[in-house]
């Protein structure tokens, strides 16, 4: 029996790696997640005959737990809107971290001097700390992105308090790990409470814009915690899957932070946009307005149009209308491309998902590096619901908080149309110099309404 179990775990580990590998290309991504799913089902099923699993009550609780947890997640996962995807990932990730912490709690409760080694205890304690932080931190991230918690939370000496709590937690963990299995329940309880508190306190001061990077970091941490539990439980499937995700998640976190031009250190230990961030350059020129009808006709007679969508477009649910507009332009022989900034959605790749939902094929969607040179040859660049990611001050003004962030060079197109709901600055509160440029015209209005008017204006041409 143990041979079958071990073979199944081995197969699961292989399937996870193959699945993740296939997810690196849009054409094979879907089979990839399915293979990983097969691995998960396989590993779960054989665990029912695992020699260490026993007791009627325990079996009942296992089945009940899977039905409840799985059922709720299935229902919520099917229901969630694509725009809310980042916080949903945060929530599911937090659950995984909590589960890893739970395994650690049971292991530490059962520990006796005869059954455990100090190494085992140390690994279990470390995994529990990481899992707890990922759990409570992810829940805060979820609450923030879901809009349940609007403000960032600051108090004087916050970092000192955080460091102190972390230090005490580590000391308690050290006591647990070196106690040789003689574990006081008070110490254990305090250890978990402080671990959870640290996750909350660490996440509270971080603003919504930086949250995707934080979610990705917690995803990596949960992976690491799961991998450590794999060592404790002597389960290679857990170990390999957990560590692979831990490493992959760490790299993904770095890629995201780089795309946003925000070093991870700054995200975790400092605040963004607290002060005005240096002298504002005087803005030359005035904002010119254009009507939707004129904008539609301008693009209908253009040769090449590049659309720059931002999160604002998704909030206005304008992506379906924009795709309809794109198809009308394509019928007239206009070359239409979509330019996606790495942080156009709420996290890298999120905008691609939102456009895919509307039916936009991925081969007319390009990322920053692929398309930035093409703006020079574009007749029209239409910016819809995006702001900071096309702000030229990121290239020109060293004093600006967003200086150095890679931007889409929409300002280099012959004509620029910025669709915007109202006057005012972007997410970061920085004035956008593009709006005042000579080749730019503003198209005010709700994204969906504007998109519908654009569609109508092209249709009217026949």
């Amino acid at each position, binding site marked *: 029996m143990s041979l079958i179990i071990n073979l199944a775990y081995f197969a699961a580990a292989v399937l996870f790696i193959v699945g993740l590998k296939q997810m690196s290309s849009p054409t094979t991504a879907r089979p990839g997640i399915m293979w990983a799913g097969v691995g998960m089902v396989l590993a779960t099923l054989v665990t029912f005959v695992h020699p260490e699993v026993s007791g009627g009550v325990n079996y009942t609780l296992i089945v009940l*737990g899977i039905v409840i947890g799985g059922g709720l997640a299935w229902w919520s996962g099917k229901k969630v809107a694509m725009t809310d995807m980042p916080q949903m990932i945060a929530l599911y990730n937090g659950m995984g971290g909590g589960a890893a912490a739970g395994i650690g709690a*049971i292991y530490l409760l059962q520990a006796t001097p005869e059954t455990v080694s100090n190494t085992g205890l140390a690994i279990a304690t470390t995994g529990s700390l990481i899992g707890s932080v990922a759990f409570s931190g992810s829940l805060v991230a979820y609450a923030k992105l879901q809009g349940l918690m609007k403000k960032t939370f600051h108090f004087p000496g916050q970092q000192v308090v955080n460091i102190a709590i972390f230090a005490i937690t580590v000391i308690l963990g050290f006591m647990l790990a070196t106690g040789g299995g003689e574990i006081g329940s008070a110490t254990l309880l305090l250890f978990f409470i402080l671990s959870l508190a640290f996750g909350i306190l660490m996440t509270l001061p971080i603003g919504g814009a930086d949250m995707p990077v934080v979610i990705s970091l917690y995803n990596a941490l*949960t992976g690491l915690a799961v991998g450590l539990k794999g060592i404790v439980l002597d389960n290679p499937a857990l170990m390999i899957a957990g560590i692979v995700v831990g490493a992959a998640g760490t790299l*993904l976190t770095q890629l995201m932070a780089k795309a946003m031009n925000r070093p991870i250190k700054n995200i975790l230990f400092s605040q963004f946009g607290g002060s005005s961030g240096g002298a504002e350059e005087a803005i030359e020129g005035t904002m010119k307005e254009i009507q939707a009808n004129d904008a539609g006709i301008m693009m209908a007679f253009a040769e090449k149009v590049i659309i720059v969508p931002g999160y604002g477009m998704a909030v206005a649910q304008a992506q379906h209308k924009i795709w309809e507009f794109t198809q009308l332009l394509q019928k007239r022989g206009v070359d239409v491309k979509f330019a996606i900034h790495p942080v156009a959605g709420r996290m890298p790749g999120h905008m691609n998902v939102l456009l895919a939902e509307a039916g936009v*094929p991925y081969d007319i969607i390009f990322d920053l590096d692929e398309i930035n040179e093409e703006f020079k040859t574009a007749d029209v660049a239409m910016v819809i619901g995006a702001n900071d990611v096309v702000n030229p001050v990121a290239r020109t003004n060293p004093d600006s908080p967003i200086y150095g962030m890679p931007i889409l060079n929409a300002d280099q197109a012959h004509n620029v149309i910025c669709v915007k709901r109202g006057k005012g600055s972007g997410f970061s509160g920085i004035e956008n110099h593009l709006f005042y440029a000579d080749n730019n015209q503003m198209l005010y209005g709700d994204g969906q309404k504007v998109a519908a008017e654009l569609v109508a204006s092209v249709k009217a041409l026949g």
Partner: protein
Amino acid sequence: MIIEGFIALYIFMLAAFTGYEIISKVPVILHTPLMSGSNFVHGIVLVGTMVALGHATTPLEQAIGFVAVILAAGNAVGGYVVTERMLEMFKTSKKDDKKGDNA
């Protein structure tokens, strides 16, 4: 014990390089689904919680184990459902392939 001391360290190291290598070639358009997909993969913690609950002996251990199984099952199932939903939508304009709409 299957995994003895230093062997664990070797597995750890090789798995870490594997994870790093897999991700380094992923295009930005797949970052969100991939994060979700890797989130699903660490749902394997479900197996760990099942074993932990499986040898729980006191009511306290059973209670913790039960909650842990619920959380882990949520991680695995939720991670799969949202990843699958996202990946289902990626289409190319070259061929109008099957529209498997089951959402």
